[in-house]
């Protein structure tokens, strides 16, 4: 059958993407850094860009790309359904809040921070906080995973969901967490340090330059995803995704491999959390809710589980629709037809439909990964030629 081409597809992966990615990124950067603020630009184009794709929206999309790529490693590669990914986002965000702001005002630690040395609070360099945040999240990923990963897939989904509810609630009630203030509670941590890049510190409004940094982070995640997939660990993940029992019989250490998936996925969540904290210039507890977890899952499912480019596409489409597209469209529609339809409320419908319709009709996503496509339609093959190869009867 099509097995040969599948094997080909797995091994055929090169670094040509870097060129395309750099060019796209460069065009985006030039557009948003120089072209949009340029005074000679016709007002119509300026308005259109600000209505349909403002700089904040594109930066936010990139943060979602980073996190969707992390979730893709857990869900798409290792096949472990994670419904509480928002927990890692929250932990990453609060790491940025702790180490890059005046939150711990009684301390005075400054480690290559972008503020004057006498400023109160802990101020650690953005690039280091990225790594710290990533590692704290990875640690939490392992802590959450270690006792729970032996559970069946749907129980695992529930446990992750539970953690995805507990951890944000800890931060939400964190104003008095056993006597300590760990998060400022509902007020959130406002004001996160700017990003030092040598010549300049990037504050909350340097959208163009921050776009470049987020592009870089997303590129790192793409690179890591692609390389891991090709390597030993990635192949072990795919083996577990396709048949856990067979994989363990072939000598894949189940626990260690799954934990690795959790840790890498969580690391990306941490990167995204720190990046998002600098993007919105603060950390707010009520942002971290279950909807975000499902939102990220919908991105991975829409784009194509397991395929890095599909996931990026899915993340861009959905975060654009949610952040800007739907409201911009609604505004246009209401202006055109003189109606008062509240389009923002249609996000639930949209995400629900995306998940259901994709699962019913195109389970492999917009840009399918060939191997996963075969796997997802295995059951249907069984139905069609039941006499030929019906190996799993019933459930």
């Amino acid at each position: 059958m099509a097995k040969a081409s599948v094997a080909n597809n797995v091994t055929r992966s090169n670094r040509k993407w870097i060129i395309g990615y750099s060019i796209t990124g460069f065009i985006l950067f030039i557009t948003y850094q120089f072209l949009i603020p340029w005074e000679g630009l016709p007002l119509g184009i300026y308005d259109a860009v600000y209505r349909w794709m403002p700089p904040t929206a594109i930066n936010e999309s990139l943060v979602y790309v980073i996190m969707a790529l992390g979730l893709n490693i857990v869900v798409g590669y290792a096949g472990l359904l994670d419904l509480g990914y928002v927990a890692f986002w929250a932990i990453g965000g609060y790491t940025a809040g702790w180490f890059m702001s005046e939150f711990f005002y009684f301390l005075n630690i400054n480690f290559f921070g972008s503020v004057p040395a006498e400023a109160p609070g802990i101020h650690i360099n953005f690039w280091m906080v990225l790594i710290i945040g990533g590692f704290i999240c990875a640690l939490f990923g392992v802590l959450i995973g270690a006792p729970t990963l032996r559970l069946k897939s749907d129980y695992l989904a529930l446990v992750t969901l539970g953690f995805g509810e507990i951890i944000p609630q800890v931060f939400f009630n964190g104003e008095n967490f056993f006597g300590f203030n760990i998060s400022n509670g509902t007020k959130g941590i406002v004001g996160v340090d700017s990003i030092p890049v040598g010549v300049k510190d990037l504050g909350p409004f340097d959208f163009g330059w921050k776009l470049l940094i987020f592009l870089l982070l997303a590129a790192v995640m793409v690179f890591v995803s692609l390389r891991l997939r090709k390597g030993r660990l990635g192949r072990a993940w795919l083996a577990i995704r396709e048949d856990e029992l067979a994989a363990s019989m072939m000598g894949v250490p189940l626990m260690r491999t799954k934990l690795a998936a959790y840790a890498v996925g969580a690391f990306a969540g941490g990167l995204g959390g720190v990046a998002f904290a600098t993007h919105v210039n603060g950390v707010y507890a009520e942002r971290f809710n279950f909807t975000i977890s499902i939102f990220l899952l919908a991105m991975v499912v829409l784009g194509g589980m397991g395929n890095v480019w599909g996931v990026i596409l899915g993340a861009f489409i959905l975060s654009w629709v949610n952040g800007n597209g739907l409201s911009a469209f609604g505004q246009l529609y209401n202006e055109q037809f003189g109606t008062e339809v509240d389009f923002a409320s249609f996000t639930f419908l949209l995400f629900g439909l995306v998940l259901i319709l994709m699962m019913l009709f195109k389970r492999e996503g917009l840009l399918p990964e060939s191997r996963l496509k075969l796997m997802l339609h295995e059951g249907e093959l069984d139905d069609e030629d039941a006499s030929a190869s019906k190996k799993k009867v019933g459930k």
Partner: protein
Amino acid sequence: MNEGNGVTLAKAVEAKKFSGTPGQIRQQRIERVGAIVFSALFAVWMLVNLFAAPEQFAQVAISGLRNGLIYALIALGYTLVYGIIELINFAHGDLFMLSAIFSSFFITYWMGAEESNSYGWFAFGLCLIAVMVFGAVVNVLIERLAYRRLRHAPRLAPLITAVGMSFLLNFVGLKWNGSTPRQWPTVIPSGDINIGDVRISMITIWLFLVGFPLLLALNYLVTNTKQGKAMRATSQDRDASTLMGINVNKTIAFTFALGGAMAGAAGLLYQQSIGTTSYNLGFQLGLIAFTSAVLGGIGNLWGAVVGGLLIGLIQGLNDGLPYAFGQAWSQSVVFTILIIILVFKPAGLLGKAVTEKV
């Protein structure tokens, strides 16, 4: 002191002989230790609170059990569906939410009953039937349109579809109820009955008077009728039951109808006892109800009931007692229980551990 504890613990753990493979023995030992430690902690916590504030204890325990009954009714839907097709029906909580909104509209707008008199009771009775039919129909529709097509797909697919369904129902609820919670008049009499210092509201009594017969009826249906037998057969082995002449599709649809009807009744009871509806009600209550189903042992009817009452009790005690985490941590407590149960005893309190066949 510590050493003494350790020795007793070890004795208690080893009290019953373990059997099975080394892996199973290890699992049994973990379960035993976990069960002893957690029930001891739980008992100490209850006792401390009982001595600190006895009246308050009884008060919050009763209101906790009242919520527990509603959890139990919802949990039955989860447990029935999981028992038969091994799917966590995430949309079930939202079906409950829609039922609550349906009953508010039915009683207040369509029937025009606003106070507790004989007409109010008539509306309540009619609404109970209507909302059960409503829940059953919606649940069967969901099964027919989405889950049935995915019955042979890998498990991830129906699970994600269920999450999508939950969002879809959430949207319907948002459009129907509006984005803010709504207050409704109730037709159940609101008086209190005092037993000593403990106050029991009439609502609680009526809730149990309506809810418990439903549970008994469901139990009768599943254990004593032909259709119930077909359900149990289908959950054991779908192919074999097809060979025995059971219409599997019909049986699964019937199971969804039963679960939906229970969610419908729960919706009505919730709306009548709490008096408010909001579109995002289903997610929280659904999760708590699912936790109850898991706690009792998923797939086990009485397990869902016991689990629901127990979770309601724990939540009530946690929210209202002096030595507890308080309402702000209510959800964290429930989810911690979920995680502990899943880690230490995935089969639940009343469930039997099933080894996976290959």
